[in-house]
């Protein structure tokens, strides 16, 4: 599903060039569960942003479903994100003035789906993460774990084939972190969604069948469990 060829990403910070990614080659098959681990600054978040089409590589090629997406313009990349990729962030990124249900509806709204179709799908997605009862609550009326579950419902409601999770438990206590991870894994299992989790938490990283370790912008090893 995913194929990265010689991906480099160089930032200019002050007068200095920082190589966040220094030649990454990677293949991820459809339906895989991959964790990306490494210390801060190892380039794992940059890798996730490139995979999510939120960032552009300085050099190299990115093939998504066999299609070179490196040179697509912003609008085309936006459409791909909308249809193919779901994001789960460390800080949830729920829109504070919208209810849980409306937050889940947001990607469908952006995609221009009619309200009659959106509402039942959003309700089903919330039910799938166990929050059917909380649909009318606003984010500030939900616990951290609940917020992340709303975010997962939002990430999956468009039925993307790729879920990118950036430190999904980084802002949660152990119990709710475990719930969130189990939820992600269940969706991956039940719906066959490709799951890429970036974390510096070894315990979380170990759960993935395939583990990538990053250091200084390179993938050191791929461990197949």
């Amino acid at each position, binding site marked *: 599903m995913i194929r990265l060829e010689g991906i480099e990403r160089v930032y200019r910070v002050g007068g200095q060039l920082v190589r966040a990614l220094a030649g990454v080659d990677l293949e991820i098959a459809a339906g895989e569960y991959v964790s990306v681990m490494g210390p801060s600054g190892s380039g794992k978040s940059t890798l996730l*942003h490139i995979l*999510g089409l*939120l*960032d552009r590589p300085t050099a190299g090629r990115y093939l998504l479903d066999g299609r070179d997406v490196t040179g697509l313009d*912003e*609008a085309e990349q*936006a*459409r*791909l*994100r*909308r*249809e193919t990729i779901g*994001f789960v*962030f460390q*800080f949830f*990124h729920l*829109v*504070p*003035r*919208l209810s849980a249900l409306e937050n889940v509806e*947001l*990607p469908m*709204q*952006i*995609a*221009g789906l009619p309200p009659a179709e959106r509402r039942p799908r959003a309700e089903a997605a919330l039910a799938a993460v166990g929050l059917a009862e909380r649909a009318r609550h606003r984010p500030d009326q939900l616990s951290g774990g609940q917020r992340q579950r709303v975010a997962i419902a*939002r990430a999956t409601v*468009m039925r993307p084939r790729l879920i990118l999770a950036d430190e999904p438990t980084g802002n949660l206590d152990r119990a709710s972190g475990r719930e969130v991870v189990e939820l992600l894994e269940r969706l991956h299992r039940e719906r066959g969604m490709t799951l890429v989790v970036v974390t510096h938490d070894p315990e979380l990283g170990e759960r993935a069948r395939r583990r990538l370790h990053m250091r200084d912008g390179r993938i050191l090893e791929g461990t197949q469990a």
Partner: protein
Amino acid sequence: MRAGETLAFAARSLAAHPARTALTMLAVAIGAGAVLMLSALGEGARRYVVREFAALGTNLLIVLPGRSETAGATPGLFVGMTPRELTLEDALALLRSPHVRRVAPVVVGSAPVSRGGREREATVLGSTAELVRVRHWRLARGRNLPEGDPRRAQAVCLLGATVARELFGADPPLGQWVRIGDRRFRVIGVLAPQGFALGVKVDEMVVVPVASAQALFDTSGLFRALVEARSREAIAAARRDVLATLRERHRGEEDVTVVTQDAVLAAFDRILRALTYALAALAGISLSVAGILIMNIMLISVAGRRAEIGLLKALGATPALIARLFVAEAGVLAAAGGLAGIGIGLGAVELAARLYPLFPFAAPWWSAPAALGVALAGGIGFGVLPARRAARLDPVAALASR
């Protein structure tokens, strides 16, 4: 995202900051209200002047000697070459038209008017009894000029209100003699205060029989002739008859100018309309200030919602959609403020109309749509820059900001 949803989304994000949203709307409302109130003031001035001008007389045609190619409010001012005078006989001949009700010949001059030790310079009008009727003047005291053959000079006069007061003070002027130039006239009437008429103060005039004025100023021609048509519909026919009669009497030459009161009114109307537009445009400038405020607020909003913009991008919103969302926000601000301003403005006009019932305040029909249109155009126009800034945000950096 659908259009209605874009607006709803924009409205909700505005509602999340009630104080700054309300203040920005207030600025727009003041601008839109100012457009409405100032245009109502201009329109009121127009109606006031037109009303006053219409009071000069009804269905009036003004016949001026000389052919003027220039259409304007007072062609008499730039009468150049006069090939032939307009005579009293010409004026009297106009009465033959069935469309003409009254004709008042007018001779104008300036002469010192004195009584006893008091003297002042006054405009002296030579005319007939018809002048007072054509002009709808009222007499405060005494009677009108004598009827009868206007060719006969009689030593009688009517005094304007100011002239009467200055020459006679508290004394009764009727039956008294005044000296106008080198002749003596007996006062038979005093005009009620009238205000302005065609730029001349009626109150500072003296009216004498036309033949007396011709002798006084040693002239055989008329300054003009005022013709009253039988009805509004008869104005055009009366104009044709006047021109035909005078052409015939002037050996086929069309050497007079006929200005209808309609044309003069129309000229005033045009000028004051332009004034109203100018006032509205001035108020529109205040709306552009409100537009800048909208831009400022939108820039703050974009800066404060970077994470949200990043999220929308991650969820698949195109830069165009992000831009639309923010332009919609600016548009909703402007529209709501504009509508509120129109409401406030209409209320203020209504209040002013009650406080000053004599002045015909009225917001012209176009002022409300214009106020709303300018507010919207300004809001959206000034919203474009912040919206583009939002659309161009780098999603990674935007998501990182909390």
